[in-house]
């Protein structure tokens, strides 16, 4: 049995720890601290309030996580829409590559990571960003290639063009998605975990 002061201090520590974890999106840990605080005799009103906050934040977090995929896709889509104002050749290749494979995926991935919060595991953030930005890049590439090839004509080699176009779209999507995934997983919450 701890002395009352020490117990009170420990209880306060648990409450504060739960609140801190809640702020950082670590809901499981927050619940653990709250549970401990409750066992140590914390006031029921405080426990309930914190418990409700954790639940609300967790639900909100889950919703944000769901929407962040679309958000990343949207940011990527807008970025690639901007890029589509000029062809890679007109942008100059290094600039286009920098924008298409680095800048836009990085921005989208970072935004997604921040939006998802620390509650999501880095692995989950990586895959989420990879798919969202990858699809945006895939659409951008596929639409651009279709449009260009439509103007050029297929010259009776539609199958070969389709294979080449699909391959390139997939490859570009993979690269852009990977960049977005890495940024989302490693940089969005770097230093907080």
């Amino acid at each position, binding site marked *: 049995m701890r002395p009352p002061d020490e117990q009170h201090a420990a209880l306060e520590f648990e409450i504060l720890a739960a609140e801190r974890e809640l702020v950082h999106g670590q809901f499981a840990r927050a619940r653990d601290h709250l549970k401990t605080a409750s066992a140590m005799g914390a006031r029921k009103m405080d426990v309930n309030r914190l418990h409700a906050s954790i639940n609300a934040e967790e639900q909100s977090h889950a919703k944000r996580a769901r929407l962040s995929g679309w958000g990343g896709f949207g940011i990527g*889509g807008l970025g690639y*829409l901007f890029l589509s104002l*000029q062809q890679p*050749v007109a942008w100059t290749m290094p600039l286009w590559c920098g924008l298409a494979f680095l800048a836009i995926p990085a921005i989208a991935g970072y935004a997604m990571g921040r939006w998802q919060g620390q509650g999501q595991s880095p692995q989950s953030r990586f895959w989420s960003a990879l798919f969202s930005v990858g699809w945006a890049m895939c659409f951008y590439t596929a639409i*651009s290639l279709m449009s260009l090839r439509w103007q*050029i004509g297929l010259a009776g080699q539609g199958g070969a063009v389709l*294979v*080449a176009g699909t*391959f390139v779209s997939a490859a570009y999507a993979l690269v852009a998605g990977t960049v977005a995934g890495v940024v989302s997983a490693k940089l969005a919450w770097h230093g907080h975990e």
Partner: protein
Amino acid sequence: MTLHIDERTDGNFALFIDGDLQFDTADEALYHEGLTLPALCMAGSCARVLICGGGDGLALRECLRFPGVERVDLVDYSPEVVELGRTRFAGINRGAFEDHRVAVHIADAWEQLDTLGNFDVVLCDFTVPRKPDDARVFTREWYSRISASLNPNGIVAVNAVSPQATPEAFWCLRKSIRAAGLNALAYRVCIPSFRAQGYGAWTFMLAARRPLRLADLKQLECPVETRQLDLARLYRGASFTRAESSIERHVPVNSLENLCLVPLLLNPAMDDGRWTMGGGRWTIDDRRWATDYSRNSTSGRAGSLSSIVHRPSSADPSSTVFRPSSAHPSSESPFDLAPLLNAIPVTHPYHTREMVEAMAEQVIGAIRSLDIKRLVNALLRRAGELPKDLVRELRKLRDFLRDHTPSFDAWREWSYRLFAALVITMTLANTIAPDNAFAKGAHGLGHASMSRGYSGGFGGGRGEGGSFSSARSGGFGGTSFSRSGGFGGPAPRITSSGFRSRYSRGGPVDVYGYSYAPRYYIYCGGGYYHVHPAYQVSGGQPAARPEKHQALFVADDDMMVLDSGDVVITLSDGAYLLVTGGTVALFNEKNPEPILPVYPDPGLFRNIQDQVQSQQAAVQHDSALRRDWLGWVGWTSALFPIVAEDKREVRNLDDMTRKLDAAARRIGSAPANAVPASPVTAGQVELFVGGYLLSDDTIGIRQPDSWLYTDGRSIWTDKEEKSKSRPCPPLLTEAVQSILKKLQKELTADVASDKNDLRELYTDNLQLQQDLVQYQGIYMSSGYQSDYEVDYGTDSISVSQAISRTQADIQQNQIDYQQTQLSHDKAHIDLDRINSALHGLWR
């Protein structure tokens, strides 16, 4: 069978059998003349006629007024209809049943046919079948039996169904007739009352053992006057598009073993193969259904049942069906019933598509009105009374609904919005910056189509510009080229592989990438600074050694750019003009040295420059597109041969751009003080730029410093007396002859083509006038209702629109006629002059 006569206040009436319109006295003549007269006209003889069905006596009336008809047998299984024909309809069928030539048989035609003997004309005027038994008289077997009862030149006319509302049934019927060994010819007739019922354009079908051609319909000569049908225009309804006629391949033959016509009529979207008859009922092949599902579900064939089943009018209270979706106007998207309706075959006439639709909507509405979540929660509240397994499943369902339903809805909603936003943004981006991936590009030069536009577009209008070789007044004056269709047409696109595979390895290519046979020209450097044995131009220089140059680019039918950058304009098989360094020289292909210099007409140079530069721009544009493409995929050239070929093509295009650039510089321009040729005067014919056939059949050639004249034997200039003439070089005579002969051929073709055009325009004009009269007649007979619907081509538009459009067509037709007449007259005069020259001095 139910008979219903719909009396109207205007004195007209209509007969309905089992809800199907049989005729309306307002336009019944269209139907019955359409059914009977073509067959009677086309039959070798029409002494014996058999009418199957047609108890109303209206088809009988048409037969009896046709000369040469000696006996008509009418077989109808309905005594009621025949009685109506004798009594109520006697006024409109003109007492046809009282005629002594008529024998009426109240019997089933199927049973009776074999007992009646042979016929010259058989008219099948049956009602549209509503149950499989009725379809016996539309089977292959039935038509085989009819074929057997036909005299050698006999013909059958069949009341078919609508190819518009029930295309599968229509083509099934045609296929069945053909399967019986008969040739079939279908033709549409627009019957307003049928159309008003939603039956669409109606069709009749002629069938005979002998071949039936469209021309037979065109040449119909009918000895009796028609009341409503225009037989001269009947053939216009006999053409079907390839897409329409392709349906025939997919539909089955209606036979006794496979009575598919009724299901096809009741289910117009149904295809062959998906439905099979088994155990006395129709079944569907699910695998085929699965593959056809999406196509059918989007076909949206509205009112498909209308030709068979009476569709209640909108004013009919019974047509109002309860639509549950209206209870949730904003929250519910409309449910697509088409797949469901296609999955429920209509197999009975009273089992209407409307009924199925209403029933399905009731069910869907009931399901939609359920709140599944509340239902599950309510059930779980009574969990104690439910089996444990069921409770467990319900809990899973509740969790599923909680976890998935909202996100799915959000996904669906957001994806629509996102897609719409993307489309709008791309459209805006396109508008702001056309040079992006989604644009067609702003470089719609359209120049290359010149080279093709000439050969086709100028065939009949030589005086307007023509090709380089034979362009006469105005041709090189700048106006015709500058306003030729090439610049206004679509941008040329490389659609062939000439720049990939054959460029610089053999024949020349054009801007479309088409390869041509290799062509070489051997000449001494070009220009007129060359010495010729027959004459020496002022400032002449020693001739250079002959060089062989390959044609690299076909800029026009007659114009080629050589690998040296020089331009050759082919005048005939043996003669050409070489344009280079601001000079023009006439060459005979047999000799590398120029025959004589030709005046450097500024119009010629301007047009060649325009041609070369515009095609160069087109090539550059295509090259830029390919470069953009390679910007994306170029790094995969080791993986994909097509990308490697694209790279090669870009290199070749760039090379061509450089060559055209060199050509544009090498061609040069006419001297600053050069003046264009004056227009040709009467009696003159322009053979090529600067070369004229004069009224006395001599040839005048405009040279840099004088006019040179020749009669084929001697040459002289305008600066010297004809008496001082010198012998004409044989190469020049030969070249002129070949040019004249080529022109003769072209002008002969032009005159023939113009004549043909004039004939067609005249025929069109007559038809348009007839159409106009007919539309005006309809307008009057409809009580001056300007919005009365009529057929206009394949459209149905208001009669006032039809009249105004027809009037506009007539006006345009007259303008075209005048222009073609002018072109024809000019070509004819020129041809006469050339013929005269070829039969005289230039024989």
